[in-house]
């Protein structure tokens, strides 16, 4: 009888420790959710994006970890160079600071390859004749901590380019 009491007491202690432990690590109230900001959140595709690229700011990642920023490939959409079995394409990457914050910007190659889907000439220059720009729409963007697996999500809206004034 005494043994049962000891076992029950032991299990109760374990349960309490685990519950308290979990509440400290898993409760959203005690640990803020990772965040991602896409800057700007709305764009239209133009060559200006090469000089002023889309950038990303995030927080809530593990200190000093690499963060990969990806665009989720919408179902049915084909992106040049991306396999049909792949669900995302990398846009940028950065390293989180001591506070778990990171910032990253798209390189010119990323903008040309994944937004414009250009071809490349034998001269190593982008070939806009072969370009297949992403259609307007709302795209899911995810930032993932490479060590922690923490994911933060946001959106990028691509709108049609403004109409040129008629001459």
């Amino acid at each position, binding site marked *: 009888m005494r043994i049962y009491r000891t076992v029950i007491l032991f299990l109760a202690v374990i349960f309490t420790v685990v519950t308290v432990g979990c509440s400290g690590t898993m409760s959203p109230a005690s640990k803020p959710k990772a965040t991602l900001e896409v800057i700007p959140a709305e764009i239209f595709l133009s060559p200006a994006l090469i000089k002023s690229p889309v950038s990303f700011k995030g927080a809530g990642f593990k200190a000093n970890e690499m963060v*990969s920023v990806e665009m989720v490939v919408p179902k049915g959409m084909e992106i040049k160079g991306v396999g049909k079995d792949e669900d995302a394409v990398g846009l940028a990457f950065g390293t989180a600071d001591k506070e778990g914050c990171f910032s990253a910007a798209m390189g010119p190659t990323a903008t040309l390859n994944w937004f414009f889907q250009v071809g490349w000439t034998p001269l*190593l220059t982008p070939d806009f004749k072969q370009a297949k720009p992403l259609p307007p729409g709302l795209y899911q963007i995810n930032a993932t901590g490479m060590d922690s697996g923490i994911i933060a999500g946001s959106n990028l809206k691509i709108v049609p380019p403004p109409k040129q004034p008629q001459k």
Partner: protein
Amino acid sequence: MKARSLNIFSVFAGLCLTLALFQVTAAKEVSYLSLADYTGPIAGLNVPADMGLSDFIKEVNEKGGVDGIKINFIGIDTRYDVARAVSAYKRYRRTAKLLMVNSISTPIGKALAGLIEKDQRAQIVPGDGEYQAHVQRTFLWGPAYQDALAATFDWILEDWKAKGNTGAPVVGYLSWDNAYGREHLRGGQEYAQKIGIKLLPPEFFPPGTLKHDVYLTRLAEGGANYIHAGGVDPTPTNVIRDAYSLGLTKKIQFTTDYWGPTELGLGVHAEALEGVVITSFFQRGEDAKANSFVTDMWKRNRGSMEKFNEVYGMGVSWGITFVEGLKASVKAAGFEKLEGDDMYKAYQTLKGLDKKGIQGPCAYSDKSRRGSLEVKIYRITKGKALPISDWRTAPDAVSLHKF
């Protein structure tokens, strides 16, 4: 009752047999990840290189693999984009028995080096001397870039003297404005100073530059006797095409590195490239076409030699190294326990491995990350890349630089 028991026993025995057969026939497989460029700016060279590698792997698999282990080749088209490569590595890093990653560019290799360390596996990269200076899990395909530049400087000095000149030659350097373009000078610059070559302030230009006249004119006005043109073909071809148009190739000797003119550039600008010197760690031009191990593999898998590019041989060499590494790692760890770390350890035991004449013997060891130590000097003559030296050991320029 007896019959019922027999039936149950039969079903149970059948299940056991099926499970046992499944265990026996379950594919023993390891993976190789190529973070490549198949449709981007350097696709012209990367596609034939990965053709060589995948053909080699295919033939090994067709012969039953390595001790029954098949190799799964995963080729990812990064289009030469680092962010895409990082994302692709994230996707594949948990692949069971992923033993090797090939990063096609210096910036991709640098971005992934930290993750490769954390994941305790190995990667191979083009020629970043940093990994020889600080020995890690990143291995080079051949000698470090700075070693090759030093070998080019040695040749320049020989050529200068052979032409009856006295004093020191003046050398210009121009290349891409990125980690690759600058890597050669991290030790190469110190070597030039050591042997008395006057190196002009280097010129850097963005990949994709259409005309190189400004940079070339500045180097010519600086008194260059030789100009070393970096970049991955067709960039060096285009630089020399511009130099030819400016009339500079008549008075200045042009040299290039590993990624200098291949069949790709020669097919378009043979006249402009005449006389250009290439320093390479793998067989080029006519040398490559004379290597029957490589050309037979091409013919078996690709047919006519019409579209053969010498970079194919470099891919075959990656395959030779990987297969020997796999043999050594399986011998040490066995298949069941095999991990990336075992391959990393195995690569360090490959010193002296014969690469079928494609490049010098493997130089990997616990202290060396160089894929080989030798380079060969080639000259474009009548539209063909012909060797003008035998294999020669490239100087250690890495040790001259503080990393």
